[in-house]
């Protein structure tokens, strides 16, 4: 049950993801983007950062990395594949998830805490949450505005593929201001129809210890651990 943390040139949350995975007792290793085999790994995590400097478009150049063939193979075989932030952008660019991530409507990189509602708890990434639970998790991105055409959006909603949505904090409900980037339908994270490929803009690996201000991301990694134990 080993997780591959993919290192693209320019990834910068790779060590943070590794730390979080190991914190819950998962075995995890860094895999350089030129690797052509993910033999021995049962899951892949595409971390945050600026792969290829995010030049041209966030995630646009990373999809050509040799390791992506193997990530695709893992995904097709039903193993869990997670893309966080830049990793989510890479997954959409590579066509493993629908839609695209465009420049935030405020036009600048934004780093702050946001609130997320968990829409599904039957996934290998969310089983340790309760339905509708509201999480406090940081974001840090410049291109996180989820976009898909109307038809795709409709299909995502009907298939319950939206897993995380931006929301306001429970103690101060509000109708606006909580969506940090202009994402359609307040989408923060989605999953593929099979339920094994997940992408999200917020950073659960930055919220795994109370000393960091929130441990709401910990169940995310615990869920993954549980799921991988079942796989074996």
């Amino acid at each position, binding site marked *: 049950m080993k997780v591959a943390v993919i290192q693209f040139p320019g990834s910068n949350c790779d060590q943070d993801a590794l730390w979080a995975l190991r914190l819950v007792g998962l075995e995890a290793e860094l895999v350089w983007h030129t690797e052509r085999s993910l033999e021995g790994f049962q899951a892949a995590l595409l971390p945050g950062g600026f792969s290829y400097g995010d030049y041209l478009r966030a995630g*646009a150049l990373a999809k050509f990395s040799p390791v992506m063939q193997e990530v695709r193979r893992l995904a097709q075989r039903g193993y869990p594949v997670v893309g966080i932030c830049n990793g989510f952008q890479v997954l*959409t660019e590579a066509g493993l998830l*629908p*839609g695209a991530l*465009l*420049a935030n*409507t405020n036009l600048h990189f934004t780093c702050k805490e946001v609130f997320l509602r968990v829409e599904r708890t039957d996934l290998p990434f969310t089983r340790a949450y309760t339905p509708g639970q509201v999480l406090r998790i940081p974001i840090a991105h410049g291109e996180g505005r989820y*976009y898909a*055409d109307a038809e795709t959006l409709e299909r995502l909603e009907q298939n319950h593929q939206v897993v995380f949505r931006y929301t306001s904090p429970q103690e101060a409900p509000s109708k606006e201001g909580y969506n940090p980037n*202009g994402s359609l339908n307040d989408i923060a994270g989605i999953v593929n129809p099979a339920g094994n490929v997940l992408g999200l803009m917020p950073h659960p690996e930055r919220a795994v210890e109370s000393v960091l201000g929130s441990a709401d991301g910990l169940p995310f990694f615990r869920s993954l651990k549980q799921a991988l134990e079942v796989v074996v």
Partner: protein
Amino acid sequence: MKYHITLLIELKDGILDPQGRAVEGVLQGLQYPVENVRVGRVLEMELEAPSEAEARATAHNIGKALSNPVMEVFVVEAVKELA
């Protein structure tokens, strides 16, 4: 043969372009009578190819590889033979 290629990658119509809007706001603030400002990318490069037709075909493939069909369109704007 060497060709100079100009490739434009732009957001599809109908997709919100906040950068275009911001630029439009600035220009209108300066009293320029402009509308529908859109901001995209231009790529210029030199390409080795046996003929202009093949250069154009390769440029097309490059445009395809570098643009994202979900929200972008690309145009091979120019293909010029270099001395």
